[in-house]
């Protein structure tokens, strides 16, 4: 508002911005009022918004995250995957001994923690046989480590005892604490501390011993001081004694220095372990390419593997490719879901349109009465309707009995109406029909009947009048009802599960199967994400056509 306008509008007042009663400029005062209104509206919405975000949106986000999340391989096999990055998978050669050594260390720790079977079942989704391979290897790794353990213990029984190991590896302060600690006291076990000098001269032993100490103290809850070390520690110890830092061992002065020097001298003549050959002995699959390709392909923290799997593809050296013909199931399932949802939507239109018309064109009293027939199924429990159909469609059910009694169907050739696609389509058409009738009815109510009469008086036949005048006006109702029915049917679970048998099931039944039976949650999440994308696309269309504010319930 410019000053000149003000001056002409309010003659006699001095020019300047218009003021509110309290003296602030009106513009600012209005803006503040508007802001306060917005804030109060948001404050009223906030509790629910937060509630929905936590109880509903977060779970959906979690599911989407799970469909790409793949931390288990890297978490369980950290050393192996790190070395594998430099492995040239295209050479066609199985990785070299260092990888097998890392694999030995990883699997050893994993089997102590009982994690290797979980990794096995995860990789089994990608490569059949991985599960048993890992289970076997978990049992076999103990033997590999024993080679060094036996040699050290045969050389000097000193190395048998956990106490001796702790005396060498533990720091003096920790040793003092652990020796006075009693499990019965109820106090927490003093956490292990490595002796600084040892960490320098025996780096691998120290690193693995810390893992061992952490596991013993925190997961097993047993007294570390009394515990004999893992076989793994002996092989790490051997590596240190024969490794680059071996020369510095003689500089060590702490407890067990004499035994350490003796061990160093003896280790040079020890029988060594060929890790690659040892794993080959456990299972010769380790000397073949597939398992290594799989581990390498699934070592990143995030993977598109579940999504590839969900569209019947798999990873290969040349990028994603289709699975072999006999392993493709999801494309069929998605197509079947789409096809059946379309059939259900079409039959709902076919059955819903006449009913919508007659409800909209009958006098209000009769229409309200007939509306009850539509609303009663709408309000009745879904399971009641599903069980009614299950009962009616059985071989010995009411429908077949009636058909047999009427002589339409012979007694020995009763129709198979259930546990197939027919059953699903009949039951779901019935269940979703009210969702088609209600929007159709509300649109048809707004079409003036005089239009039809006008068309007829201008010479249109019944059919032309309907098709050229009435039908185009009812299309929004058809659109709204169809999208609603389609969205609902594409994600249906209960009814197909009960009346669908094996051929009448939907993608949602597969998702449920992967969650509760096969436990392949990642694949379930990926299938769900694809389904969600389809539904959200339709939802967007619905919002554009009808507007989500215009959803009406129960007429």
């Amino acid at each position, binding site marked *: 508002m410019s000053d000149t306008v003000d001056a002409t509008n309010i003659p006699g007042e001095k020019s300047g911005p218009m003021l509110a009663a309290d003296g602030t400029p009106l513009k600012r005062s209005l803006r503040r009022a508007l802001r306060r209104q*917005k804030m109060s509206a948001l404050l009223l919405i906030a509790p629910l918004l937060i509630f929905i975000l936590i109880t509903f949106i977060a779970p959906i986000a979690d599911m989407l995250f799970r469909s790409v999340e793949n931390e288990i391989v890297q978490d369980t096999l950290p050393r192996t995957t790190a070395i594998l990055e430099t492995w040239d998978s295209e050479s066609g050669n199985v990785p070299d001994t260092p990888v097998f050594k890392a694999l030995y260390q990883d699997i050893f720790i994993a089997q102590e923690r009982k994690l290797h079977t979980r990794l096995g079942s995860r990789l089994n989704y990608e490569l059949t046989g991985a599960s048993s391979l890992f289970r076997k290897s978990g049992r076999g790794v103990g033997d590999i480590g024993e080679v060094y353990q036996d040699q050290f213990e045969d050389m000097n029984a000193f190395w048998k005892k956990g106490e001796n190991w702790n005396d060498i590896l533990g720091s003096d302060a920790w040793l003092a604490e652990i020796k006075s600690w009693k499990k019965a006291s109820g106090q927490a076990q003093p956490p292990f501390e490595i002796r600084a000098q040892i960490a320098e001269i025996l780096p691998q032993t120290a690193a693995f011993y810390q893992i061992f100490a952490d596991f013993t103290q925190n997961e097993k809850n047993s007294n570390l001081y009394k515990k004999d070390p893992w076989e793994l520690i002996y092989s790490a110890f051997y590596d240190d004694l024969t490794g680059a830092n071996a020369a510095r061992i003689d500089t060590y002065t702490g407890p067990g220095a004499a035994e350490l020097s003796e061990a160093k001298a003896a280790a040079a003549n020890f029988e060594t372990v060929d890790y690659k050959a040892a794993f080959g002995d456990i299972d010769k699959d380790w000397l073949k390419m597939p398992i290594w390709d799989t581990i390498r392909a699934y070592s990143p923290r995030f993977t598109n593997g579940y999504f590839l799997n969900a569209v019947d593809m798999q990873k290969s050296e040349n990028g994603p490719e289709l699975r072999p013909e006999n392993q493709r199931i999801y494309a069929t399932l998605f197509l079947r879901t789409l096809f059946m949802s379309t059939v259900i939507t079409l039959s709902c239109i076919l059955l819903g349109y006449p009913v919508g018309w007659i409800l909209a064109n009958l006098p209000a009293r009769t229409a309200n009465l007939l509306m009850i027939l539509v609303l009663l199924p709408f309000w009745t*429990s879904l399971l009641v309707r599903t069980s009614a159909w299950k009962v*009616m469609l059985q071989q010995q059910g009411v429908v077949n009995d009636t058909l047999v009694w009427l002589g339409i169907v012979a007694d020995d050739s009763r129709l198979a109406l259930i546990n197939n696609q027919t059953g699903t389509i009949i039951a779901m058409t019935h269940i979703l029909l009210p969702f088609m009738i209600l929007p159709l009815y509300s649109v048809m109510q707004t079409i003036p009947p005089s239009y039809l009469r006008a068309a007829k008086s201008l010479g249109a036949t019944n059919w032309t009048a309907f098709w050229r005048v009435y039908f185009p006006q009812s299309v929004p109702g058809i659109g709204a009802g169809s999208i609603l029915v389609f969205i609902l049917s594409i994600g249906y679970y209960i009814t197909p599960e009960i009346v669908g048998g094996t051929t009448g099931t939907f993608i949602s039944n597969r998702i449920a199967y992967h969650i509760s039976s096969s436990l392949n949650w990642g694949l379930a999440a990926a299938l769900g994400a694809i389904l969600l994308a389809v539904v959200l696309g339709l939802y967007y269309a619905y919002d554009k056509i009808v507007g989500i504010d215009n959803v009406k319930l129960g007429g």
Partner: protein
Amino acid sequence: MVALTPISRKPVGFYVPTVAAAGAFLGLFVGTSQGSGILGILVGAIVAGALAFVLTQIVKNETVARWATVLAFAVIGLLLGGIPALVLGAIFGWFFAWFSFWLYEGRYRAKIAPYLTPGQVLWHFTFRVICGAILVFLITPILVVIPLSFNAENFFTFTPKMLSFDPEGYSLKHYRDFFTSSAWQGAVWNSIKIAPAATLLSVSFGTLAAIGLSQQHVPFRRAIMAILISPMIVPLIISAAGMYFFYSRVGLQGTYLGVVLAHAALGIPFVIITVTATLVGFDRSLTRAAANMGANPVTTFFRVQMPLILPGVISGGLFAFITSFDEVVVVLFVGSAGQKTLPWQMFTGLREQISPTILAVATILVVISICLLTVVELLRRRSERLRGMSPG
């Protein structure tokens, strides 16, 4: 509706063949069920045609004619096939007597426009018959369940005893099963514990938010609405999967609280939709008038706004309640055996060993939904009346 067209009696040549055709149609079914379709058609056509002629031309008095036909057909039915045929015969008799006079008097033309051609009249009634058939399709499954639940046998179809209305064919044993079985009663209690809690949560949060959403200036209104409505749009199996993953991460999986929260989230869109719909018709000048007279916002809310939107809130609450009470997919994943609800128990029953007790439960649920439907309908009317009373 008043009569549109003056009616007159129709010639014999029109209605006798029509009734005969209807008789032939019914005769076909009775005939096939007895062994010979063609014989059925012939007998049906002759009997129905003769009946129409005799009733309209000889008896003439409609009331007498109707009762006489009903009685005659019922007796014939009883002689031929016992009690079920008696009922069927009475219905047939009533229908044919009515049909004959309806056509003879030309009553069928009374309520339709006078300029329609006979073909259009025929289409008019064919269309109604089609609509009637669709409505029958809608309601039959619900109606069939009710008598079947009183079956004395463990069958899922009508036994001959039931069809002959033999009291021995009926029993309340499935209801007794339901009320004495600990599994079913436990499920009922779980449902009763979960649904109201979930409803309370969704109604209180939902009403507040709906009031906020119906203010004039709401930033990001569309986005907020889309988020709040999403639990209704996202397929249940996806919600269930997501909640299962997420709730097991935070330790809510398999707990009462987890199920209640999940059900509350699912019920919220219904509350939002119904309450916002009621608020659309709410006259804002009423709150301003209340403020003008010195009421603070809280008093205004409880004394002015709340009574007016109460019908919407209650029907939203009923929707939320029925959503939770009827929900099975999410509770199947989020709940554990301790939260087994009624629908869950029904679902297991249907999937594993289907027992007729389910039909008894279904009947009880149908009765409950009839009650709920009545309440919602009454509330809707009340809401419309209140809205009509408020100025503007």
